């Protein structure tokens, strides 16, 4: 057993760069997150659909096998719709993952008054939010645009450079649509957990916001006979943007630009609420 000095001693050694400190928070938060076996299992399960897609891409390029099993030639087409469905499935998985992982990131610190311990150090509120948001950002990226881009690269390799060049915009759509979804989910989850300071309730609120939001939007539209009710339905707004980014022909009640502006407003409100709560001490005026 090591023998530790039992005296006070100051520290005069080298310090890590100030810009890298948010990464400390990321490391610890991520480690804490994966202590949950359920979350780890769910995270692994999130890769089931990408593996299925990978198999589909492989099969689409093995015509001999398809002919052997008697499948029609146009059954497996790897195009924008294929990646749109991929994005939909992974997007919803990302939402469920956020509902489990997101609220616990901040609520614990707020419930136990740990924020003064962070902010009495050379560590700002923005770095704190960045450190916590990066956990969700990286976690959700791992199940959305990262496997999406891997699938795109594999498809491009198998289909040849002309397909890759013609469909390069799909790669951009994958990244942009994922980043919008990740931003709104992360900020919403953190803002809700900062306000209710209770992990389970914050998770439930996030789920309710999406599911009840859809019902509420329908009710508004039906009662007032308008389409603006969709602005309270975050899932609808996101799907509208995905439709536009993946060039899917579908009837949408509101244009993609308006949906994007609405999501931007949601992000701004969430960030505002978050920054209001993430303080060393709350001032009661």
């Amino acid at each position, binding site marked *: 057993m090591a023998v*530790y*000095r039992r005296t*006070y001693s*100051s*520290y005069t050694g080298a310090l890590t760069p100030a810009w890298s400190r948010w990464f400390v928070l990321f490391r610890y938060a991520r480690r804490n997150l994966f202590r949950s076996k359920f979350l780890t299992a769910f995270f692994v399960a999130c890769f089931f659909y990408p593996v299925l897609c990978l198999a589909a891409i492989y099969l689409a390029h093995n015509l001999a096998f398809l002919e052997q099993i008697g499948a029609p030639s146009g059954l497996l087409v790897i195009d924008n719709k294929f990646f749109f469905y991929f994005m939909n499935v992974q997007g919803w998985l990302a939402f469920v993952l956020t509902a489990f992982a997101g609220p616990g990131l901040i609520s614990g610190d707020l419930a*136990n008054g740990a924020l003064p311990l962070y*902010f009495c*150090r*050379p560590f700002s509120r923005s770095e704190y939010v960045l450190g916590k948001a990066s956990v969700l950002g990286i976690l959700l990226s791992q199940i959305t645009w990262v496997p999406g881009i891997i699938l795109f690269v594999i498809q491009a390799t198998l289909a040849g450079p002309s397909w890759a060049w013609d469909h390069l915009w799909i790669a951009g759509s994958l990244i942009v649509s994922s980043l919008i979804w990740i931003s709104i989910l992360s900020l919403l989850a953190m803002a809700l957990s900062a306000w209710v300071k209770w992990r389970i309730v914050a998770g439930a609120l996030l789920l309710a916001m999406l599911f009840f939001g859809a019902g509420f939007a329908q009710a508004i539209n039906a009662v007032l006979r308008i389409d603006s009710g969709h602005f309270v339905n975050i899932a609808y707004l996101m799907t509208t943007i995905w439709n536009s980014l993946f060039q899917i022909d579908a009837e949408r009640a509101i244009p993609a630009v308006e949906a994007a502006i609405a999501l931007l407003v949601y992000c701004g409100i969430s960030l505002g609420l978050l920054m209001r709560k993430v303080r060393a001490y709350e*001032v009661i005026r």
Partner: protein
Amino acid sequence: MSTTAQPGAADGAAQQKPPAAPPAPLPLVELQDLSVRFGNRDILCGLTASLRGRAIGLLGPNGAGKSTLINTLLGFYPPHSGSARVFGYDIRTDTKKLRGLIGYMPENDAFISKMSAVSLVQMMAELSGLPTGVALERAHEALFYVGLAEARYRQVGTYSLGMKQLVKLAQAIVHGPKLLILDEPTNGLDPSARQRMIGMIHEMRDSGEVRIVLCSHLLRDVEDTCDEVMILKQGRIVHYSDLNEERRSNRRFLEVEFYGANGDFSEAIEKLGCECALRSNRLKIILPDGVESRDIFRLAAERDVRIRKLNFRRDTLEDIFLKAMES
């Protein structure tokens, strides 16, 4: 301890240069008309002070503004007007540099319940800029130092109140700060734990490596550990004293509790050349040379005054505090 050369010292010694006076320590905290306002309420009103002690006590009743002053020095609350400097750094503009020099032990519960004490203290060290390996080593050292060696792998949420206080102290000292701010460090501690906490504060103060600001409403804690004290009341400084100076200059006085006296008794005592202060049936008497307690007994016997209690005392911090509160 005085280092002044005495006149009439030996010739050889007189030719020697007197030893240079030790350089006055840099002001730790300088307040210049500092005011803090929440909404329309003035919490701190025009504080001006220059504090230089190794350990500075902030005293005051609840709501006096002690914690607000600390939080303002840490940059948590912006000053409404005036300025404050810690180690010469402006709290408005050099907040990050300043926080790198400070270790802070908050008053209220502050922990992450699902983390072990080692992980929590290591993370706080890393956030202060220590590399991972060094942070882990110092986290163990800090927890050994505060006396949580055996319990350091337990989740902090399972700790008793006293243990949580110790973890807060460990995270405050883990990065070896130059200034340690302790907000009510003995809250919730049993007598032996309190004694140990006071002992640690003593030891850190005497190491000379860290200066301490201790905020408490427990006078004994401040009296035991601090050499300078600032008393706040309703957001204003009502008293400042250098406790070492106070201890040196504080004359011994006689405290007399009696029955059946009138103004005549205290007048008779004053005629002996004593300084005298009467409060209900208590007299505080500073005896000049040549006057002894038996003279007081004699005067009491002559006037049929019954003395109930008589003892020699010095002004305690409590006396200073009560005087400041009355003013």
